[in-house]
């Protein structure tokens, strides 16, 4: 580890010697933060991520200031024949606006046929995308960490069973299963109704089947950590397995877990979009990016903005999370030089 050699460089006047081993750990984080701050691309990613989360949380406020209720129809602005936004709403034969009705009032234009405000729907769509992506990531990180750490620590037949289970889950045709499950689960299952059930279902499907990725990483890390002296020491002092697993090993796994969850989020966003695209996502009229993209294909010739805008939203979000995650990984990597 290179951490101790950097300790004297630390800012904020902390005396590492006085803090004991706790200070050494904090200094690693501080080094990482210093590296991360210098990585402009990663910082940009982080800023966009923060903005996206703020956008999702503040959706009601944002739409009140700059948009309309996300489900409000504005059909008087639309061409009834092709569904596109009219060039001149006062004249029904004025043709279709190639920009989809973008204006000062409708910042990102109008949804074909219904005339719903695209800006509001994109903002509200972020709620669903981020909620499902975060929920699914938490679920698969939880399952993956617990099973990975158990498999790595105990080894033997426990490891064999869990590792084979990972292989099976990885080989599962997830998308097909998701479509089938979403069709079979009746409304009102598990005491959940409507979109509550839909969101829970999406989180479960994505989270429950993606855990082996993180599980494998945790298992590998555990295999190397369990041979280390501090584990030996704890064991010789009579610590039980539970203590060693969750008090000794887990704190040392936090960094890789954090990094990989950040990289899982964009994957899960895409997955949620794919499921909504295939019609097994959220119920209308609640907006979701994947659902918008799916509907937009019927209008790509006359209202191209309807394809491009939700596509861009997904693209920007995924890119931002990836840059953020990559930067985080580089910053925590002990082998990278600064």
């Amino acid at each position, binding site marked *: 580890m290179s951490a101790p050699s950097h300790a004297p460089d630390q800012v904020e006047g902390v005396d590492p010697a006085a803090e004991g081993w706790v200070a050494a750990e904090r200094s690693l984080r501080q080094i990482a933060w210093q590296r991360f701050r210098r990585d402009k691309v990663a910082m940009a990613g982080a800023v966009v991520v923060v903005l996206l989360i703020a956008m999702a949380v503040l959706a009601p406020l944002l739409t009140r200031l700059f948009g309309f209720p996300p489900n409000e129809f504005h*059909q008087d602005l639309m061409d*009834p*024949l092709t569904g596109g936004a009219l060039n001149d709403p006062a004249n029904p034969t004025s043709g279709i606006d190639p920009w989809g009705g973008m204006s000062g009032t409708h910042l990102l234009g109008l949804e074909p046929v219904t005339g719903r405000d695209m800006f509001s729907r994109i903002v509200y769509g972020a709620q669903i995308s981020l909620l499902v992506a975060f929920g699914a990531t938490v679920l698969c990180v939880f399952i993956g960490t617990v099973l990975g750490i158990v498999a790595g620590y105990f080894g033997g037949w426990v490891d064999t069973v869990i590792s084979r289970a990972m292989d099976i889950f990885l080989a599962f045709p997830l998308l097909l299963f998701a479509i089938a499950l979403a069709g079979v689960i009746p409304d009102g299952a598990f005491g959940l109704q409507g979109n509550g059930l839909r969101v829970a279902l999406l989180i479960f499907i994505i989270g429950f089947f993606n855990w082996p990725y993180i599980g494998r990483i945790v298992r590998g890390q555990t295999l190397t950590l369990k041979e280390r002296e501090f584990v030996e020491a704890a064991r010789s002092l009579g610590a039980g397995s539970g203590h060693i697993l969750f008090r000794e090993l887990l704190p040392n796994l936090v960094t890789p877990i954090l990094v990989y969850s950040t990289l899982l989020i964009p994957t899960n966003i895409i997955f949620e979009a794919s499921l909504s695209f*295939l019609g097994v996502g959220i119920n209308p009229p609640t907006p979701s990016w994947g659902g918008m993209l799916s509907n937009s294909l019927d209008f790509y010739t006359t209202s191209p903005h309807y394809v491009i805008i939700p596509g861009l939203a997904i693209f920007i979000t995924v890119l931002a999370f990836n840059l953020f995650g990559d930067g985080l990984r580089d910053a925590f990597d002990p082998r990278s030089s600064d």
Partner: protein
Amino acid sequence: MDTRQSRKARNLSKRALGLAALGVGSALFLSACGGGGGTGGGAAGTFDQGTTEVVNASEEQGGTLRYAMASNIESTDPGNTYYGYVWNFSRYYARTLLTYSPEPGDKSTEPVPDMATEMPKVSDDGKTYTLTLRDGLAYEDGSPIVTEDIKYAIARSNYGDDALPNGPRYFKELLADSDDYEGVNANPSDPLAGFDGIETPDEKTIVFHLKEPFADFPYVLLQPQTAPVPADADKGEQYQEQVVSSGPYKFDGKWTPGNGLTLVRNEEWNADSDPIRTALPDQITVEEGVDQNEIDQRLVNGELDVDLAGTGMGPAKKGEALSNEDDKVNIDNPENGSLRYVAVNTVVEPLDDEACRQAVMYAADHDSMQRAWGGAAGGEIPNDVIPPQIAGHDPDLDLYPSKDDKGDLDKAKEKLKECGEEDGFSTNLGVRADRPTEVAAAEAVQQSLDRVGIEVEIKQFPSDTFTNTQAGSPDFVHDNELGLNIYGWIPDWPTGYGFLSYIAHGDNIKDAGNSNISELDDKEINKMLDEAVRTEDSDEQARLYSDIDRRIMETGAILPIVFEKSVLYRPDNLTNVHFSQGYSMYDYMTLGTTGS
């Protein structure tokens, strides 16, 4: 009837998945290639001309007529199909006793003789139908067509456990003296023994005996099951590989699903014996499994002649073509005979109260629902249930009038008060998830009912189970309080009975695969329907259907969305084109081509 509907449903859902799988990248690519106008030889015609008259009339023979479709042909076997496009297309190689008239406009719903010399002679009690074959009818090997082969064809497609699975079973329902008959494979030495509902006294005469009078029987006689099949050529379901031709074209090699089909001229066909087919092209080709956007683009480019499925352009290219004046003259926009509607359930509370249902009828924004269906090109706003092509349609009926079709909110609120739900109520709306148009209509319904405090939650279901186990199951509908369901109906033939009996007769409520999704069981309607099907006089019958039509609207059990319209593209090089209301697509038997 329900089968045809659900088949169609399956077909459309496949198409929807195909579109989804296409993805954005190729979609934009196709868009970029678009814009090239048609450069065929013939005159363009005008918008919607083919709906009422023949466009590009021609007697010019020769060339290859090129068909393509998005899925595979269901089956080429005329005895094993429930799809309208096969009923239409199979006539190239399989002649039937009767068929729909090849004349354009309203006449195209009329049955006329094909192999028969004239329309059937009906006995006084209405139970016996007698037909005679024309002279000079022969198969592709030159052997004569005899009536026993027609009887055999009907037997193989209707009777026994191993009857062909895909077609309708009207003959089995209607024919007398045949209920114990177990099919053509039960007794190999005499396959037709015990099948006494059809008599063939000589090679040219065929007599049908019915259990009960059934005034619509000519519509059964024009179904492709009456195309002759020589018993020694029958290979069960494998017969579709090479159907023995009785028409102007025969198979060029075997057909296997997905590999396309080529038809060439059958020299044994005698034009004098055939008033229906023009037989203009020298060759006919079908490509299967072509993406819908590609089909539409190739039609516009003049690289293809007809979309075999006949359901019209896909949503993406439709908008583009309709907004382009050069393309628009090549478009026909006929009503296709189907009603799209919201089934308002009569059992789920509080919609079990007629006044609550009428509140829904008043509150509905028809303009918004029509826009969801593609505006005026997607369908007409109906004021009743029976489509205009069918006797009984009442153009003057308007029970729930409103300004600009936007709904009458005051009346709706009055009705809500009447049924004791002054503050509105909540209910659920079932819709097929993979049908964007229906989901859009569901959102329009939701939005418009919200205006009077009726809160609607949309529930999505997969379309391959929707008509059978969700909307089609009364138990499921009650358990999930699906007060509203988006549904559609295309009758097997254009009469009031064919249209109404399955969706509005109380006796047709079934535990699964139910088509009467409203669970409408109104004594008056049931009685009038039973009476109408026995009525011989067509004016009296039409009057009865009008009364039923009005009564259904009064009950508020069916909220009509649109009388659906297709957007059909008619390339310049296609000749002799007109829309057949009988098949709800172009009449394929008259078509010719000036290209290739």
